[in-house]
């Protein structure tokens, strides 16, 4: 198949990628660049497992052709940590134990990071809406909601409206 050279910034590094122009960005990231964070789930942009940030906005990469990535700034879950420290959303996912199988986790984290960049103090309803394109089959939704709200509270305390709901951890009765 005919190939083209695509130049894009991936996780802060400029990359030149030779691939078929209509190759899905997800394939390029996983197979050509060896990134495992974006996951294949459906191939048609309906599940969110493959989400990456393109120009700071979360979107599916399985139905995003490589040619459209030319000149774009792309961030995968691997590119979120700063100086060895996890992004607040990643840390909150661990703090809330907000996963079961974890296959959808990278896409969830990316969606949440995209949301928090646009809205530092989202309501629970706004988080639900922002993550609506991310499917989870294990049923970890409540924990993920708590994690995103926790990350928002941690990273932008000044931006939170007065009286904003603080996520409360579900404790077992013992």
């Amino acid at each position, binding site marked *: 198949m005919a190939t083209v050279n695509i130049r894009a910034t991936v996780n802060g590094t400029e990359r030149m990628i030779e691939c078929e122009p209509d190759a899905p960005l997800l394939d390029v990231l996983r197979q050509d660049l060896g990134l495992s964070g974006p996951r294949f789930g459906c191939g048609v942009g309906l599940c969110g497992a493959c989400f990456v940030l393109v120009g700071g906005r979360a979107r599916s990469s399985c139905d995003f052709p490589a040619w459209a990535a030319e000149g774009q700034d792309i961030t995968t879950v691997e590119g979120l940590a700063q100086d060895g420290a996890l992004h607040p959303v990643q840390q909150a996912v661990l703090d809330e134990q907000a996963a079961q199988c974890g296959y959808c986790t990278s896409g969830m984290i990316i969606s949440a990071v995209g949301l928090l960049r646009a809205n530092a103090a989202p309501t629970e309803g706004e988080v639900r809406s922002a993550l609506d394109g991310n499917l989870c*089959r294990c049923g970890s939704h409540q924990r993920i909601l708590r994690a995103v709200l926790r990350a928002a509270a941690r990273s932008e305390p000044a931006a939170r409206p007065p009286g904003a709901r603080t996520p409360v951890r579900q404790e077992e009765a013992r």
Partner: protein
Amino acid sequence: MSRSAEPSPSLAANPQLREWLDFSVDAVVTIRPGKVEYGQGVWTALAQIAAEELDVGLDQVRVAGVSTGSSPDEGVTSGSRSIQDSGGALRQVCAQVRAAFLAEAAEKLGADPAGLEVARGAVGPGSGESGLSYWSLDEAALLDRAARLTVPAKSPARWSVAGRSAPRIDLPDKAAGRPRFLHDQVLPGMLFGRVVRPPAPAATLDGVDEADLPDGVVTQVRDGSFLGVIAESDRVAVAAAERLAQAARWTVRESLPDEDDLKGFLLSQPTDDQPVVQRRDAEAAGQVRSTCAAEYTRPFIAHGSMAPSCAIARWDDGDQVSVWSHSQGVFPLRGALATGLGLDPARVTVHYVEGAGVYGHNAADDAAADAVLLARAVPGRPVRVLWTRPDELSWGPLGSAMLARLSAGLDAAGRIRTWRQDVWSNGFVGRPGIGGEPRLLALSHVAGGTPISATLDGVPSGAMGATRNAVPAYDIPDLEVTRHRLLTMPLRTSSLRSLGAFLNVFAIESFMDELALAAGADPAEFRLAHLSDPRARRVIEEAAAMSGWAARARGGTPGESADGTGFGLAFARYKGVAGYCAAVAEVAADTSISLRRLWLAVDVGRVINPDGVLNQVEGGAIQSASWALRERVRFDRTRITSVTWESYPILRFTEVPEVAVRIVDAPGEPETGAGELAQGPVAGAIGNAVADAVGVRVRDLPLTTEQVTRTIELS
């Protein structure tokens, strides 16, 4: 605390201590369970059990990957039995190893073993710095022996690692996006395979026209109606498979039932009829003054794992094959592959690598068979096979459609005296190797392959198969339960989380509300009046208290809710012998049906990782809600048509309810597992809440807005 002298079945089958752990890495204990991790958190809990009994830090425990080449054979990771079986074995093994270590250390030190303590795997600190540790003693002396049941494990009262919430050992990789899943594995020289599935379950491949395949294709594989392609990259394999699909000529037949008449389908097929319970009480039957009867159904349900199934296989030296799979049962898979391919099982090795969440027997094993068949064409090269999303939703085994027909008799005081329950279903026991058949999809498509025969269902009991939880937990003197297993199987079925319990509990708990209404009783009170088991009563009382049941928005007549809000309660003891769960649901019914909140109280006996239990119960509750409200495999007379997340919708973030879970403390009771016990009660609670909100009983799942509207219109 005294322990049962019964070994876990896993330990009885694998009695050598060395099979379960070693100290080959300094300051690290490597445990080797035969149960696999697929997101349920079981490896974390097993590590806690080992750390507790050995007196090492949880951070010192590593869990070895499961492989038929190196792990104890613990069969399939299913049935919520890992903590009992694998945990029970590891607890006993580790207690014995610790006792042997202390005896050895005491002899070297000339001390009384009872006076020594172990911390982080070494004698001390209260016993002085002896320098003796699990890693300093002769490993063979500690481990080369058989398990004895006379060594007592610790009393839970002395636990410091087990019984407390521990963070999952697998989550840091997942939050960072590091390679962890089978889908991320890249083996040296790996090629990429794709399978072109038939266009329908009943289809025969007549021929393949010449296709212009892209550069990078290594070879095509055709064997009967099994058609696949191997390429240098997955992109090329996908493109080649699409062209092959266009070039393939098939004879397709209609073989599926009428999706809009599942009841008619289930009742019209030949069945194997087996009694589950027959308990006659003529005196009680004679007290019956009124009777009720109803039928409840569920459709076929798909597993819908977030990742399409994946596998890698490589053939070496002619007849030796290595397989990497996310199967729930690598040992049965090895046996089925050997049987199906006429190989010596000793020449087949299956390694487990985690995939996305698994909720029963999905397509993982089938993908493994695909990889094995394709890789045979390129000896020495590993071939990775990845399924497509449409194939995953249509070719993997399904949870069977079911019908439960119930009738009951009440006496003058409103007590249930008689109960009949008949369950029609395809079987749930269809994993590889069951009944001596490989039961692997590709092996049914190759030349000379035979269709997978109708799935079996295990021993008819309230604990297994389609009749799991078909025996009500209530005190009913005259009881008869019968299983009707279908002997035809137009849509392939096998085990899906909770098996028949999802429908049986939905049916029983819906019916209990209908009986309560007939008896003029509050649904919670009506249940308690028929329950003498104190643990059952306790979870109902807890769930009622959590949800404010007594003071719920209205205590009035069903269907007279001013604001369209409805509350429902349901209960079951999973399998009749395992964990207890009561659930309360709150739904809102206006222009659509939405589930607002769920409250669950569970008693799962002793708890190893409380947060792990909460996670499993929360997740089970949401998945059950998704099944109950949304899910239904769609098909025409030829093929399954629900092959995307649009045509097979599951509950999304904007639709999931708030979920509150409380664990009822029961430290003196054995562990029961927690992964499946919410499925039935949540469905029952939602059904009862919908009936409470709209005043009409909807007995056919899923409870979509359209289904509820249709039922109201027909009422």
